C-alpha cells in the first residue's frame, strides 16, 4: 500500500470539496465509508488514491419509510438494511439480496452507497499486472482468453468482460429508485438508478456516471404494495459467502395466476446491475407456469455471449430466472396477497 493522506471533514459539503478528483477513476482521492472495497484494492496496489476522505461520521445513515417511498441514507450498512422492517416486510427481495451477500462481518461495515459501487472481482483486474482495460486503459483484456468462469456474459465488450459482483443493486434496480448525490457547491443530482452504471464498451475504466467529486448521499425507493411478492434467488458454489454464479431478483404483481406486472433483475451474469425488460414485457398478462417462466428466462439471457469457462451461465441464468419467478408466484402473503 502506498502512503495516502487521511482526512475527516466535518460535513458532506466539505467532503465533496476536499476529495481531490484527478479525472481518472482510482487515481484521485477516494471516499471512505465501509472501506471493504477501497482498502482491499489499496492493499493489492490496484487502487492508490493519494487521499481518503472519511465520511463515516457524516450521518446519511437513516432509513425513513413514509409508506410509499423508502428514504435510505447511503451510509446505512448492509446489515442494518437487511434487518430493517421496511426492507424485510415491504420488499423482501431487497433484504434477501443483502443477507445473501458477503459475510456478517462485511455486512456490518459495508454501506449501501459503497455496495452499489462495488468493483468487479475479475482476477485480472485485481492482480495488478495482467492486461486489463479497466485498471490500465488500453492494455487489453486478459480475462477474455483466461480464467473467466465468474465473469459476465451480458453487457460485455471486446474490451472487458468483468462482471458486476454485487447483489443489492440487482434488486434495487427493480423499483426505479433515485440516487441522491452531493457535489461541490449546489451541484448535487438526482440520478435514476438505472442510469447510474454504464456499460464497459470501449471504456471499462468508467463504471458509473458519477463525477470524481460526487458522493452518493441516499436513495429514494418508491415501493409499490406488490413489492411484498418478491424474492432474490442466488445460485452459487456454496451455501454462503460466495459470489453469485447467477442471481435473479423478482417482484410480481399478480392477478390470480396471471402476471399484471413483473420486474426482473439479474446478477452474476452481467457487466452492470441488470434489468431484463424484454422478459418483463413478455410476462405481462401471462399465466405463470414452468413454460412461461423458462421462456422469460430465455429472453432475459438473450444476446448473452459465453466464454471458455462461463458459457454455463447462459442456461443457469435462464433457469435461475425461472426459479425466481415461480418462487415469487408461490409466496404465501396471507390476506393481502
Amino acid at each position, binding site marked *: *500500500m*502506498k*502512503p495516502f493522506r487521511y482526512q475527516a471533514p466535518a460535513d458532506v459539503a466539505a467532503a465533496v470539496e476536499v476529495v481531490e478528483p484527478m479525472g481518472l477513476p482510482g487515481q484521485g482521492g477516494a471516499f471512505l465509508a465501509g472501506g471493504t472495497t477501497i482498502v482491499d484494492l489499496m492493499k493489492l*496496489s490496484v487502487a492508490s488514491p493519494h487521499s481518503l476522505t472519511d465520511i463515516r461520521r457524516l450521518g446519511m445513515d437513516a432509513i425513513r419509510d413514509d409508506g410509499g417511498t423508502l428514504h435510505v441514507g447511503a451510509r446505512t450498512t448492509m446489515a442494518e438494511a437487511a434487518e430493517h422492517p421496511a426492507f424485510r416486510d415491504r420488499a423482501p427481495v431487497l433484504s434477501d439480496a443483502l443477507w445473501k451477500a458477503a459475510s456478517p462481518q462485511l455486512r456490518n461495515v459495508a454501506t449501501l452507497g459503497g455496495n452499489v459501487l462495488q468493483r468487479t*472481482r475479475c*482476477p*485480472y483486474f485485481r*492482480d495488478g*499486472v*495482467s492486461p486489463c482495460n479497466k485498471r490500465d486503459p488500453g492494455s487489453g483484456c*486478459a480475462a477474455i*482468453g*483466461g*480464467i473467466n*468462469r*465468474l465473469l459476465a456474459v451480458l453487457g460485455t465488450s471486446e474490451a472487458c468482460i468483468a462482471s458486476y459482483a454485487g447483489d443489492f443493486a440487482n434488486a434495487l434496480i427493480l423499483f426505479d429508485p433515485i440516487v441522491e448525490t452531493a457535489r461541490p457547491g449546489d451541484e448535487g443530482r438526482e440520478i435514476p438508478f438505472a442510469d447510474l452504471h454504464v456499460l464497459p464498451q470501449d471504456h471499462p475504466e468508467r463504471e458509473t456516471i458519477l463525477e470524481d467529486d460526487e458522493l452518493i448521499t441516499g436513495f429514494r425507493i418508491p415501493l409499490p404494495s406488490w413489492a411484498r411478492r418478491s424474492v432474490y*434467488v442466488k*445460485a*452459487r*458454489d*456454496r*451455501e*454462503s*459467502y*460466495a*459470489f453469485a*454464479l*447467477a442471481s435473479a431478483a423478482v417482484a410480481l404483481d399478480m392477478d390470480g395466476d396471471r402476471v399484471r406486472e413483473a420486474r426482473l433483475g439479474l446478477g452474476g451474469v452481467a457487466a452492470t446491475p441488470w434489468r431484463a425488460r424484454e422478459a418483463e414485457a413478455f410476462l405481462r398478462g401471462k399465466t405463470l407456469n414452468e413454460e412461461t417462466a423458462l421462456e422469460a428466462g430465455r429472453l432475459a439471457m438473450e444476446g448473452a455471449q459465453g466464454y471458455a*469457462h462461463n458459457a*454455463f451461465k*447462459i*442456461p*443457469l441464468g435462464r*433457469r*435461475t430466472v*425461472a*426459479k425466481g419467478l415461480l418462487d415469487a408466484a408461490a409466496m404465501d402473503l396471507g390476506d393481502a396477497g
Partner: protein
Amino acid sequence: MSDNIGKPHDRIDGRLKVTGAARYAADFAVPNPLYAHLVVSTVGKGRIAGIDEAAARAVPGVREIYTHRNQPDLQPAGFFGAGAGQAQQGWRPLAGPDVRFYGEIVGMVVAETLLAAREAAAELRFDYEAQDPAAVFGASGVEPEPLPDRTLSVGDADRALSEAATSIARSYETAPNTHNAMELFATTAHWEGEDVTVYVPSQWVKGFQFGLATELGIDERRIRVRSPYVGGGFGGKGTLFTFTGLVTAAARRLGRPVKLYVTREQGFTVASFRAETEQDVKIGAAPDGLISAFIHEGRELTSRPDTYVVNGAENTTRMYHATDIRTGLTAVHADRQTPGFMRAPPETPYFFALESAMDELARELDMDPVELRIRNDVDRDPVRGVPFTSRSLVECFRQAGEAFGWSDYTPAIGSMSEGDELIGWGVATSTYPTQMSPCAVRVSVDMSGEAQVQVASHDVGTGAYTVLAQAASQRLGLPMERIHVELGDSRLPPGTIAGGSVSTASNVSAVEIACDRILEKLGARRGALDLEAAFGSFPQTAVEEYVEWVPSALGSGGRGSLRNGSVRIVGGAGEEYAAFAFGAQFAEVRVNRWTKEIRVPRLVGAFAAGRIMNEKTARSQYLGGMVWGVGHALHEATEIDPRTGAVMNDNISEYLVPVNADIRQLDAILVPEVDDKVNPAGVKGIGEIGIVGTAAAIANAVHHATGVRVRKTPIRLDDLFTDA
C-alpha cells in the same frame, strides 16, 4: 484411577486458544525487529534481465533489498521429496536469475516497518525475459517422466481384464489444491551471538533445525526452532520453507531480528500444494462382482526440477480382491512450484478415482455398491499376500449404513428425488495406512506428583497435547492436570514429523515405555503411583526417563534418523503384516432441479482405527476430514491460467472451502477395534483417513441424483448443464 484412555477429554490447550493466549510462531515478540516482505515473480518462466531498485530504496525505512544479485549466502538443504534433505524444493530461492514458475520468490525487502517493506516491494521493478510457460497438463512443453520403479505388478492384469465377464475403463482428474491454513506462513529469526532462535509454523521442528543448519552452514546445535502451536498444517508446513532460510540469513547479516509474514496471495505459490492428477482405472470382475483385474495408472504434475509424486495406487491396490494387478505412474514436469504433502496426499486423489470406479462397476453389474465392496473385502493384502493386522471394513459399512439408513436406498437414477430437489445417495471406502516413525521422549515425575512429557513433536490442532497427557496420566495414575506436555521445540528430545498420521502411534508408544520405566524405578504398579510410598524409599526428589522408540519394522538401524535430521516412516508391523485403518462413508446430496446447485445435507462415516486415545479429538479429526472431503468434492480448485502459470483465485474469497452453512448433518462413528499387532500402543493414525473417499461418495451420490457421472474434482453445477 479410572480409565483415561479414549475418554472425550477437552483439549488441555483449548482455553489458551480461545482466549488468544496460545502463541503461534508469528506472535512471539523479539527486540527491535526489522520486517521483511517477499517479492514474487510475475512471469511463469524466464530470466530476470534487470532490476530497478531506485524507487524501492527511496522508500523511507528500507534497510536492504535482497535479490539474486546479492542473495544471502545459503547452501541448499536438499529436497525432502527426493530423500535428500528437509527442503520443500530442490533449489534455493534467489540463487540465480532464472524464474521457474509464476509467484516464485525473486526478492525480499527488509525495512523498519511492515508497511515500508510492503510499499518498497511494490516499487521494485523487475525486467523479465519471459518465455511461455508449460504450466498445466496438456500444455506444450511439459515433460512426462515415467516412474516404472514405483509401480506394482501381480499376475497379468491386462489379460485378466480382457477375459473378465464385466469390465470398465474410466479416466478421472483431480484439481490442484492449496492448503490455505488459517495461520499464514511466517518466520521470525532472532540471533543472539552465534545462536539463533527461529519461530516458524512447522510440522517438523527437527527437520527445520537440521535443514537450516545446512543452509546457514552452522552447527545445528546453534539453532533452536520453535512452533508450539500450529494454526493448521495440513501438510503445508511439513518441509523447510524457502523463505525461512532467507529471513534467518538476512537477520544474521543485518544484526537485528527479522520478521516475515507471507501474504495469503503469496502463500499460494511460495509454499507447496496438492498437485493435479489424471488417472486411469480399469477393473474386470466376474458376474458375482468378484474382481479379477485391477489396473490403476496415475499422472501427477510436478515442478520442472523436482520429482514429487504421491503414487496412491500403492494403496488402492490393497483395498479389494484382485488376482491380477498393475499400476502405472508418471510424473509430469511443468513450470510450477514443487508440490508437497496435503492431508492424505496419496489417498485423497487416488481414492476419488478408485471409489468412483467401484460405483461405476456396481452400476455395470447392477449390484448394490455396498454389496460390491463387501464381496471384495479381503483378509490378506492382495499385493504381498500377508494378512492385515486388523481390518474392520465390513463392520464400518454395516454401522455407517445402518446409521445412514441405507436399507431405504433405491438404485434407479433420480428415484429418491423430492419436489425440486434431486436426491442421491453414494458410498465410498476410506482407508489410511498405519505408519510410525522413530521418536524420543522425556518423561519426569517429581515427589509432589507433577509430571512432564517432552518431545519435539507437534500439535497441529489435532489434540496431541491432550492425548499425550492422557497416555501419561493413565500409565502413571496421576491426574490429567498434573501432566505438563511440551511440544514444538527443537531442543526437546527428537520427535518426528507431524505427517503420515504417525504422531500418536509413535509418541504414545514411547511415552508408555518411559512411564513404565519410571514406575519400575519407583517400585510402583501401572496406573497406581502412590507418591508417598514411592518417593519415601527413593533417594531422589524426582525421576526422569529418556526413551527412544523405533518401530520394530525398522530395527535398530532406524534410530539414526533421530540425530541426523532425516525422517523414517514405516508401515505398521513390518513384513509379516499389512496395517491400515479403514472406514466407510455415506453421502446424501441434493441438487436443485432449477439451478443445479449441489449441497450435501448429510454425511455419515464410520472408522475403525485401533485404540482411540480421545473420543472427542478423534471424532473432531474424522469430522474435519469429512468436511474437507466436501470441499475436495465440490469446492476446492487452485485456478491456473495456462498462458502465464499464475494462480487466478489466490484468496479465500474465491478459493472456496465449505462454510458452516454447507455442513448440516455430519456424523462420525468410532467403530471399536483392538489391534495388538500394529504397535505397542495399539494405535492406528486417524489424522488423514477422514478425507479419504468422501469426494467419491459425493460424486457417486451426484450420479445417483442426476444421472451425470462427473469424473473430476471439484464437481460444480457447471458440470450438470449437460444439455443446456
